[in-house]
C-alpha cells in the first residue's frame, strides 16, 4: 500500500510541538498509525523539540517541588500502575469497538455517520466518522472552512483524485466535491470540519439537517 497524501511539514511540526487541537491531532495520529514515513518525521521533530527545550535558559526551582514529587510517588505504591494504551488503536478506544462493528447511523442513502463531536469539546469542530457504501456517491457539498479527512478503509475518488487508506486530505472552501467510494470495500473516513458543510446538490434542503 502506497500512501500518497501526507500532512504537510508545518502541520507535523505543530503536532510535534503540541499546538494542534485534539480533533486535528486525531487525524494526524490516524495517519501516523498507517504511515511509517511520517512517523519517522515526527520522531525527528520530537527530537528537535527536545534539543530546542534544552537550549533555553533555566529557571530556579525550589527543592520543595521535588519533595512534593516524592510524596506523590510514595503515595502511588498502593495504587495500581496506570494502564498503557495497549495494542488497540486510538479509534477503537474512542468508539469502544473496532471498525467492523460500528453502530452507524444511516441518515443518507449510501452514507453512515457516527458523530464524535462531543468527545472533542470546546473546539468548534465537528468530528465525524463516515462510511460511504462501496460504489456509492455522497451528496455534493462545499466547505465553509477547512475539512481534514483521513481514509481509514477503502478508497474514495472526487474531482481531485483517488484517495486510499492512510491518505490525509485537506479540503478548503474552494472545493466543491462529490466523493464516490471506489473499489470493493466500503470507504470509511474520519473527517474534521472546522465549519459546517454546505450541500450543493439537488437535495440540499432535505439533507442539510443531517449533516449541518
Amino acid at each position, binding site marked *: 500500500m502506497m500512501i500518497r497524501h501526507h500532512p504537510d511539514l508545518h502541520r507535523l511540526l505543530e503536532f510535534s*510541538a503540541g499546538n494542534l487541537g485534539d480533533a486535528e*491531532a486525531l487525524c494526524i*495520529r490516524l495517519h501516523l498509525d498507517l504511515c511509517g514515513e511520517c512517523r*519517522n518525521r515526527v520522531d*525527528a521533530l*520530537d*527530537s528537535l523539540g527536545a534539543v530546542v527545550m534544552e537550549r533555553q535558559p533555566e529557571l530556579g526551582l525550589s527543592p520543595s517541588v521535588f519533595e512534593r514529587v516524592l510524596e506523590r*510517588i510514595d503515595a502511588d505504591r498502593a495504587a495500581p500502575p496506570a494502564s498503557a494504551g495497549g495494542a488497540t488503536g486510538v479509534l477503537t478506544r474512542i468508539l469502544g469497538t473496532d471498525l467492523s462493528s460500528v453502530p452507524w447511523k444511516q441518515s443518507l442513502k449510501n452514507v453512515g455517520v457516527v458523530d464524535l463531536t462531543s468527545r472533542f469539546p470546546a473546539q468548534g469542530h465537528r468530528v465525524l466518522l463516515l462510511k460511504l457504501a462501496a460504489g456509492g456517491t455522497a451528496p455534493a457539498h462545499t466547505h465553509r472552512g477547512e475539512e481534514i479527512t483521513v481514509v481509514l478503509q477503502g478508497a474514495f475518488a472526487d474531482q481531485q483524485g483517488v484517495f486510499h487508506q492512510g491518505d490525509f486530505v485537506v479540503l478548503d472552501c474552494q472545493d466543491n466535491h462529490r466523493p464516490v467510494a471506489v473499489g470493493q470495500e466500503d470507504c470509511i473516513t474520519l473527517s474534521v470540519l472546522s465549519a459546517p458543510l454546505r450541500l450543493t446538490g439537488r437535495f440540499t434542503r432535505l439533507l442539510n439537517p443531517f449533516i449541518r
Partner: protein
Amino acid sequence: MMGQSQAASAHSKEHTVVPTDKPVRTDGPQDHWSQLLRAVGKHQDRAAFHALFVHFGPKIKYYALANGLTSHADELVQEVFVSIWRKGASYDWRKAAASTWIFTIVRNQRIDMLRKQQRTGAEVPVATDDLWQIPGTDEDDPTASLHRLMSERRVRASLSQLPEDQITVITKVYMEYKSHQQVAEELGIPLGTVKSRVRLALKKLRVILQDPP
C-alpha cells in the same frame, strides 16, 4: 552544553550504572541522561531521579512560563516528574534518547494542563497519550528505533549550525505555543517567509529528505 557534560562526568563518579543482564550492547545507553532514566525505570533509583530533576527541572519550568502557564509552572514540573517516575519502566534506551522521551512527556503534560483549564462539563476526553504518543511505547520496530536514535543525534549536532532567523521561528513554535501565523505576526514578516524558514531548517536537519508532494 559544556556545563552539561561537566555535570555529567562529575555525576557519573558518584553514581555508576552497573551493567545488567544480557545487554545487546554491554555499554548500555551512551548518553548520560539515558543511563539515568534507565536506572529510574529499572531500579527505581532515586539518586538518578533527582539528577534528572536537577538537570531537566529548570528547563521545564522555563518551558512552562514561555508557554504561558505562569502560575502553574511549578505544577507542570511536578506533573512531569511524577509522570516520568510512573512511566519510567516503559522507557527503553534502544528506542529513544532520554531527552526526547522526556520532551514528549513535558509536551503532553502541558497539553493536559491546558485541557483541564478549558474543560467545562463531565466529558470523557480522549487521552492525550493516545493522540501524542511517547516514543517507543507502542512499537517494536528496530528500524524505527534506530532511525529515531540517529535523528536525535543528527538534530543535536546540526541545530546550532542553522541561521539564527530559522532557529527563532522553530523556537517560537516549540516553546511559545505559537502557530505559524502568530509567529509571522509577532516577527512582522509574511506567513510565507515563516514557512520557508521552517522548511529550510527541517531540510538542513534532515527531518525531511525531500519535499512531500
